[in-house]
């Protein structure tokens, strides 16, 4: 099913390591042989811990060759969160190296997962072939890729893509975008992330284009982005608004005029920042790319010909049909009165052959989101008279911290287990750099410094750093709605009028 996809060259611009496409194929086939000998078979789920390097891509394609399902893991998660994923997914294998912490390794072994370190099994002299075709074992509708978007502390939400949905995404992008502008693509985004993996990396690389893969979230790279683009003659990169805010402030613009196209996505792109990116890059082809992990990432963007940056403007669908309906209820799909008029804001529904298979082991959740092939995105939007799609807000309960989605329930789930916690509510606050950041209001049975310090330690142990609330409010009670449920919006409004805890001072006071 991937027979018309060809791997391109791969380079790590920071280390200088590089594989031509034939070497990449040789590496893939080494791994196919090795992993077959280790017992990896079709439909096995395999955790991949180390992304954003040459080996990750060889591992990924080798797994697909044998028909297995790849599960890239966010390296920033705590051992507690990773163990939760292990218990949910029950992978048979995990690809590791010497940097894996001992707590995570113990969790793997305790749960019967076999760790494999490719470097310990390196062998030379295998066949190579530029054309990639998965083995006969894989079936089009088998699980190919699982990406976790939330729930690492509670019930993990894993988006499952099949070989069919991934191929559909790449074929649609080829048709809508062409490949010429992507001939030297730089990826600064993490490979455990749909945007970074499926679209920024695999779309060009499996179209025989040269992929330059760099460590994610690196301020060193952003400070020198212009120089990096010039040095490697980069024609395309994609990123998120907060990374652009950093690069624009800290990096000299590129001078060599190699850039052909830029995408920016995963978080709202203001018209102001959009124009700044165009000025810095020296090109007008900067597209606001709208995508969701469930749709295989990029599903619409600003391929509209001449345009001026506007707040909310996305553009035209890429391998999808977008409907704006007045309701988020599935019956709206069959109601002739449900479609919004031009310029009327409503709920965004998407139909695409690149739609996920579903949420791993959560059929009810899948049914809430997908009906008759239509996916309810949780976003609000409109389509104007020209047929151009605009995003107008979000109904989903998530905090978008610079493109990284943080789910309040993940933070709440950890705090609720703390011995002195009575109730908690995590919510979004505005942030000048990230767009949004994390805040928390908590009711504690003990409100002294020692209890708060203990809560901080508890949260650091159980939550990835990027999920830690930046602002804390210790309150006596949390507002509830008429059904006795804590209302996040009411908590947000209540806290807007309160002074936050001076957490740094409190953490430094004697315990």
């Amino acid at each position, binding site marked *: 099913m991937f027979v018309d996809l060809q791997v391109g060259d791969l380079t790590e611009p920071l280390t200088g390591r590089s594989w031509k496409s034939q070497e990449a194929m040789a590496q893939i086939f080494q791994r196919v042989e090795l992993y077959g000998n280790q017992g990896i078979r079709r439909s096995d789920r395999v955790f991949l811990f180390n992304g954003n390097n040459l080996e990750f891509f060889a591992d990924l394609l080798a797994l697909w060759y044998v028909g297995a399902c790849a599960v890239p893991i966010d390296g920033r998660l705590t051992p507690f969160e990773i163990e939760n994923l292990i218990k949910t997914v029950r992978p048979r294998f995990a690809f590791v190296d010497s940097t894996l912490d001992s707590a995570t390794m113990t969790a793997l072994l305790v749960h019967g997962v076999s760790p494999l370190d490719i470097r310990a099994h390196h062998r030379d002299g295998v066949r190579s072939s530029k054309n990639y075709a998965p083995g006969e074992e894989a079936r089009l509708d088998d699980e190919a890729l699982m990406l976790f978007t939330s729930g690492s502390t509670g019930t993990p939400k894993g988006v499952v893509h099949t070989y069919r949905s991934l191929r559909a995404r790449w074929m649609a992008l080829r048709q809508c975008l062409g490949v010429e502008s992507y001939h030297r693509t730089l990826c600064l985004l993490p490979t455990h992330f749909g945007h970074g993996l499926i679209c920024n990396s695999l779309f060009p690389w499996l179209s025989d284009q040269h992929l330059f893969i760099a460590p994610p*979230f690196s301020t*060193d790279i952003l*400070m020198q982005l212009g120089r990096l683009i010039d040095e490697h003659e980069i024609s395309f990169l994609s990123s998120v608004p907060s990374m652009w805010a950093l690069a624009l402030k*800290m990096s*000299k*613009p590129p001078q060599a005029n190699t850039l052909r196209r830029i995408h920016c996505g995963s978080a709202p792109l203001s018209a102001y920042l959009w124009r700044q990116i165009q000025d810095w890059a020296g090109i007008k082809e900067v597209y606001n790319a709208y995508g969701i992990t469930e749709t295989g990432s990029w599903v619409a963007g600003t391929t509209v010909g001449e345009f001026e940056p506007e707040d909310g403007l996305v553009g035209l669908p890429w391998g999808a049909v977008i409907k704006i309906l007045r309701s988020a209820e599935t019956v709206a799909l069959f109601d002739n009165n449900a479609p919004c008029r031009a310029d009327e804001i409503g709920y965004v529904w998407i139909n695409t052959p690149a739609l996920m298979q579903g949420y791993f082991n959560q059929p009810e959740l899948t049914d809430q989101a997908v009906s008759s092939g239509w996916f309810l995105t949780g976003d609000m939007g409109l389509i104007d008279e020209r047929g151009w799609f605009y995003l107008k807000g979000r109904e989903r309960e998530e905090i978008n911290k610079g493109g990284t989605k943080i789910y309040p329930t993940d933070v709440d789930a950890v705090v609720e287990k703390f011995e002195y916690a009575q109730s908690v509510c995590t919510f979004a606050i505005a942030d000048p750099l990230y767009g949004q950041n994390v805040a928390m209001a908590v009711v504690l049975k003990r409100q002294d410094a020692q209890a708060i310090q203990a809560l901080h330690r508890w949260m650091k142990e159980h939550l990835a*750093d990027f999920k830690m609330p930046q602002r804390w409010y210790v309150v006596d009670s949390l507002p509830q709605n008429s059904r006795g449920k804590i209302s996040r919006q009411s908590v947000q409004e209540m806290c807007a009028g309160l002074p936050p805890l001076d957490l740094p001072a409190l953490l430094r006071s004697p315990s």
Partner: protein
Amino acid sequence: MDREQKKNELIGFLRTIQRPDYPDNEIDEDSSLIESGLIDSLALLQIVTYLEQAYDIDFREIGIDPGELRSVGSILNLIARELKS
């Protein structure tokens, strides 16, 4: 303003952006701000903004070598160089 005054002002600023759980240790001139755990890497943006505002340095004009923001000492050297030019 001499170097010692600039250093005190810089450290005063760093205290306002340091990680909440960083201990109240003295910040010396040579320790890495990130590796020591004082700040995370994204706080470098706040340092850049501080230098722009306090010393009128335009980093888009001069570019940034990541090493120049590595420590209190390297930042003071950067300030001295840019003020001279």
